[in-house]
């Protein structure tokens, strides 16, 4: 099939009454989850997974993609109106978004944010559509050496880059890996760390682990601060006399270069594992600030310029398309949200990886179509339905979080139709809370848990093929490059304090 007919098939899979209904719901709920600080895209997908159990795989993925797109964009509402980023992806949106509100240009800030979120998503989805089949074609020839190296590379990137403390990042990854070794060994079929408990034989369920760590852990953490006074009430922005999306065509054209640059940054960062939207918006903002030519006439970025909102919102939404590339082509998630999507795909018997493009092409192109249509829905719903979302922002957390816990329980119960996964969920909730207290990052834990088995199986299969020698792992050029980068990243991160010390000493000498 040609790519044109595949795309057409994708749209026809999604553009059914059910599909459209699911996207409308998904985008709306996603925006709410994105807008509420403390709730995230990951949590939205976790909570809606049980809803998809009985759905056809195409419908399930349509709903989840709509949630993802809504949630990444929704964070801009609280970033601009409250100066609290809804998700880490919207931190840089606050810098200029809130000053614009102070200037009485709330509608313009929101309009720019929404429109460029849309453009970022569409840009990255179109690139994803053309890029991923090509990568899948190359990846289809990958064997155990390549998969082992890519898994190790991803784990290293995540462990070293996702937190300020490299040791704690790697520790989190190793502990996640350790939890993945519980259960029946897939190569030798022997029991590992099951201690005679029957429900441990299948290992810990990925979804129970993630829901526990993120949702339950978050609720226990919220209990700590729930007694603190927080009377922040979001005020409705005035939309009177606003034409279109609140900005002029000239302003729009003036931002196109900034948007394109930010979209490339977002897409590139999304493809790399472990960095994600939290970094891409900051990086795009910094680049926009450093290359700003109008600082003299309009004031520097950070004083209420739409350039800042454009850079941040285009980049974070472009990260979505980027993050989907390794997920779909290699089965490797780069962050917690794509990890959750990996769980969803597996649950619906779709194994992400190069073969997905051959065996399940309509579903893959359905995902692409859902991303495009959802972003159109997001564009109109988020701007014109703003008043409703702002009202929802005022629902108190002490009511919201217990309700979310009940939904988590339903989801976990339905994994095996018994209480075993609910108990696992609470256990991982405690671990999540402890991680927070000891300032250990949770993302490397999740990725260690997911990528661990991939690394282990390919390592052991590779060694069995080579008769115990590791040399062939280094002879495959692709494997060598990934392992080389992994070593380089570790050395770079480990010597960072040393380099900083030297730099400080040099500065002091000057």
């Amino acid at each position: 099939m040609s790519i044109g007919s595949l795309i057409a098939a994708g749209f026809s899979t999604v553009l059914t009454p059910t599909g459209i209904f699911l996207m409308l719901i998904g985008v709306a709920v996603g925006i709410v989850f994105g807008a509420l600080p403390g709730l995230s895209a990951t949590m939205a997908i976790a909570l809606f997974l049980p809803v998809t159990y009985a759905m056809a795989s195409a419908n399930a993925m349509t709903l989840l993609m709509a949630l993802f797109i809504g949630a990444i964009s929704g964070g801009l509402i609280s970033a601009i109106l409250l100066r609290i980023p809804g998700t880490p992806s919207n931190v840089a949106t606050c810098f200029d978004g809130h000053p614009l509100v102070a200037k009485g240009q709330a509608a313009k800030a929101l309009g720019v944010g929404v429109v460029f979120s849309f453009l970022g998503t569409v840009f990255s989805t179109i690139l994803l559509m053309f890029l991923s089949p090509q990568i899948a074609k190359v990846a289809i020839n990958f064997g155990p050496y390549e998969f082992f190296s890519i898994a190790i590379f991803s784990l290293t990137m995540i462990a070293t880059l996702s937190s300020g403390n490299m040791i704690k990042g790697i520790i989190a990854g190793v502990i996640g890996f350790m939890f993945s070794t519980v259960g029946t060994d897939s190569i030798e079929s022997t029991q590992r760390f099951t201690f005679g408990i029957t429900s441990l034989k299948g290992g810990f369920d990925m979804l129970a682990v993630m829901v526990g760590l993120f949702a339950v852990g978050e609720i226990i953490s919220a209990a700590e601060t729930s007694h603190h006074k927080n009377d922040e009430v979001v005020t409705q922005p005035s939309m009177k006399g606003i034409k279109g999306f609140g900005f002029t065509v000239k302003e729009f054209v003036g931002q196109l270069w900034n948007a394109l640059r930010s979209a490339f940054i977002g897409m590139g960062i999304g493809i790399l594992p472990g960095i994600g939207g939290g970094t891409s918006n900051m990086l795009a903002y910094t680049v926009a600030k450093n290359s700003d030519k109008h600082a003299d006439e309009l004031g520097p970025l950070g004083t209420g310029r739409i350039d800042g909102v454009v850079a941040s919102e285009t980049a974070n939404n472009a990260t979505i398309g980027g993050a989907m590339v390794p997920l779909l082509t290699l089965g490797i998630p780069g962050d917690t949200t794509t990890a959750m999507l990996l769980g969803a795909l597996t649950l619906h018997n779709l194994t992400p990886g190069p073969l997905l493009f051959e065996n399940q092409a309509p579903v893959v192109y359905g995902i692409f179509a859902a991303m495009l249509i959802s972003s159109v829905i997001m564009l109109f719903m988020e701007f014109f339905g703003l008043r409703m979302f702002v009202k929802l922002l005022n629902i108190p957390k002490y009511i919201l979080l217990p309700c979310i816990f009940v939904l988590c329980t339903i989801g976990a119960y339905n994994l095996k139709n018994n209480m075993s996964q609910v108990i696992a969920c609470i256990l991982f909730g405690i671990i999540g809370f402890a991680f927070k207290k000891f300032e250990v990052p949770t993302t490397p834990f999740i990725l260690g848990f997911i990528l661990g088995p991939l690394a282990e199986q390919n390592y052991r299969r590779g060694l069995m093929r080579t008769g115990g020698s590791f040399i062939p792992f280094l002879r495959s050029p692709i494997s060598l490059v990934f392992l080389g980068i992994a070593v380089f990243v570790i050395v770079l991160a480990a010597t960072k304090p040393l380099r900083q010390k030297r730099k400080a000493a040099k500065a002091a000498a000057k």
Partner: protein
Amino acid sequence: MSTQKLTFKKCRDLILGIFLLALSVVYIIFARQIQTRPKMTPTYANAQVLPTLLGILLAILSAALIYQGIRSFKKDDGTAVKKMSKVDLVSVVLTFAAMCLYIVILPKFGFILSTVVFLFAQITILAPKEKRNLPLFAIVAVIFTIIAFIAFRIGLSQMLPRGPIEALLGY
């Protein structure tokens, strides 16, 4: 040094490092006890290999964390330490207790009864004192439970723990 108070934040890395070191030792001991099938897989690729490596790696990393902990412990950075207040601690413990109680009563009393009780209790625990509105919380608990039951059990035909009310309703 003598004037420094021992606070959680100060010895956090040290405590974590020691705990993880102990954990890695226990993990390695159990890893060495995993049954292998020498006829099927050679020693270098059996089920013990990776767990042992992971255990050793964790031991090394925890040692590094202990070292880091001791260094930062000696270095008084002078930052104010925010202590967890008694109210916060009580609320965390109560939240945790409510969750545990919920999963204990769920299989016995079924989804509807347990969820109404849990939601009411948990919302009351989390709500700031001046905002406690018990009748409202009770209404929220009942309505949310009914909606969730209708959506998941009836709408999506998913299984939920059964109890007396579910039996009465015929679900």
